[in-house]
């Protein structure tokens, strides 16, 4: 009896959850479907769901219209570069805060996070000017550095949280055995820290890939990544649903797949381990 009730409840839960899940996912699904339609089918009323002649013409059109490869390359360089640079600076900082804590460690961490509260728009013009002065406006270098700085507090926090979880006893044991600081880092800490570092890398890459404020304002022709490429479709000449969908699909597909793989890390990472 009780079992029948739970089965029934499970069925209701499943139906409800799948319904809501599909509803939330629908805009993405619709975009992907539309990208394979002709422009006429894309705006057909009533809308066509699956029964249409699938075509790749939008993808070819988008690739011909703009230098997609260049935007993609810029995205990869900017997101990848800022992530690697950020990790290189953040790992030592987070490591020292986690393993050699002082009374001010907590204050430093909070202060770092507080720099995230500085509204980007409040310092837009100074950064713009600095870029002009240094001759790096509309360059990938500028965005690598800016996005690195923007995400640095988050990376430090994430790494700090991961490093904190490495048990101190293991370190002490290594020290007892006479390991030098270098050996300690190389053979004891690094292997244990790699999963944390990897998920930080992944998340930071996603954040940098999707960042739009700085990329829209500091790039034009040379260094524009995919965020800016898509924004160019907001002009009236770009109001073609199928082509917009193809471009959108190409811009989000890599990161969507990466995101799905890192969903578990997302939680512990973005909440600094405060939610378990």
């Amino acid at each position, binding site marked *: 009896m009780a079992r029948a009730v739970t089965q029934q409840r*499970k069925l209701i*839960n*499943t139906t409800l*959850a799948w319904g809501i*899940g*599909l509803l*939330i996912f629908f805009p993405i699904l*619709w*975009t992907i479907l*539309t990208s394979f339609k002709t422009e006429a089918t894309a*705006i057909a*009323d*009533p809308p066509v769901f699956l029964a249409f002649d699938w075509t790749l013409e939008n993808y070819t059109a988008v690739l011909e219209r703009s230098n997609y490869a260049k935007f993609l390359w810029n995205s990869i360089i900017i997101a990848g570069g800022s992530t690697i640079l950020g990790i290189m*600076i953040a790992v*030592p*900082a987070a490591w*020292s*805060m986690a393993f*050699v804590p002082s009374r001010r460690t*907590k204050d430093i961490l*909070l202060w*770092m*996070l507080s*720099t*995230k*509260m*500085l509204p980007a*728009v*409040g*310092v837009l*013009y*100074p950064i713009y*000017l600095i870029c002009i002065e240094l001759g790096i406006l509309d360059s990938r270098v500028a965005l690598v550095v800016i996005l690195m*700085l923007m995400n*640095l507090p988050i990376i430090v926090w994430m790494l700090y949280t991961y490093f904190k979880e490495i048990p101190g006893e293991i370190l*002490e044991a290594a020290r007892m055995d006479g390991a030098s600081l270098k050996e300690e880092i190389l053979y004891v800490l690094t292997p244990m820290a790699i999963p944390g570092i990897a998920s930080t890398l992944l998340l930071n890459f*996603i954040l940098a890939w*999707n960042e*739009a*404020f700085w990329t*829209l*304002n500091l790039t034009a022709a040379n260094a524009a990544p995919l*965020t800016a490429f*898509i*924004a160019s479709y*907001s002009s009236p000449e770009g109001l073609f*649903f199928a082509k*917009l969908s193809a471009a959108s699909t190409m*811009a*989000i597909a890599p*990161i969507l797949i*990466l*995101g*799905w793989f890192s*969903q578990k890390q*997302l*939680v512990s990472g*973005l*909440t600094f381990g405060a*939610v378990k």
Partner: protein
Amino acid sequence: MATKHSRSAARLMMAPAVILLLGWMLVPLTMTLLFSFKQYLPLRGGDLGWVGFDNYIRFVSSSAFWPSVTATLIIVGGVLAITITLGVLLAILLNQPMWGQGVVRILVIAPFFVMPTVSALVWKNMFMDPTNGLLAHLWRFFGAEPVSWLSEASMTSIIMIVSWQWLPFATLILLTAIQSLDSEQLEAAEMDGAPPVKRFAFITLPHLSRAITIVLLIQTIFLLAIFAEIFVTTGGAFGTRTLTYLIFQRVLESQNVGLGSAGGVYAIILANIVAIFLMRIVGKNLDA
């Protein structure tokens, strides 16, 4: 445990991050402060000298100021309310036994990875377009007049788009928190005859308070600065001009750096009021 040697090594390792962030904060901030006291029009004469607090007074007394503060607060508040309420409900639902939970979870979190420019454009054109959008088709199917979402219900539209982007985040965090809830406690309460609403109010919700705080904190940081969603949808028209967007327009579009900088200082003050409040909460949670 920490020796003098390791302590100085630690300082050395922290130095790059601290120095860079300090520079990132102080250099542009000082420049913004400096510009805010100047009449500075890059395309119309450049730096025209000091004007004291003129820019600050002009920015506040401009007819666009208070509406922009209101718009900011409505968007942030609206999105927070929607994402946290729906997030709690969705987290509870997803925590129930069901078939294909993993797949549903993947469907639900997907919007979080869609770049803001894409989600704004997809919503604007394919859903909210008054002639060809899917919502217009739906309205016509039911014999109703299609809505020009972004001009007639602009705030609602923006809140909808941004909520869609942030609901996955809230859900994911809250789901993780709910999974750590001791189910025996809930069962015991059920045995004792506590109705579902009471079990939710006295057991589930208090358990989630910490996770809700975290969602509140992270989302507020990002929502105060939303830009791309407005940039590609309304361009700040129809009452959707947030403080961020207003400053952006003053600085880049009308090239009035002095005035925009004064606005920037106001935005920084606003963000810091929120920050102090939020930091206290996080500071408390950090001790664990």
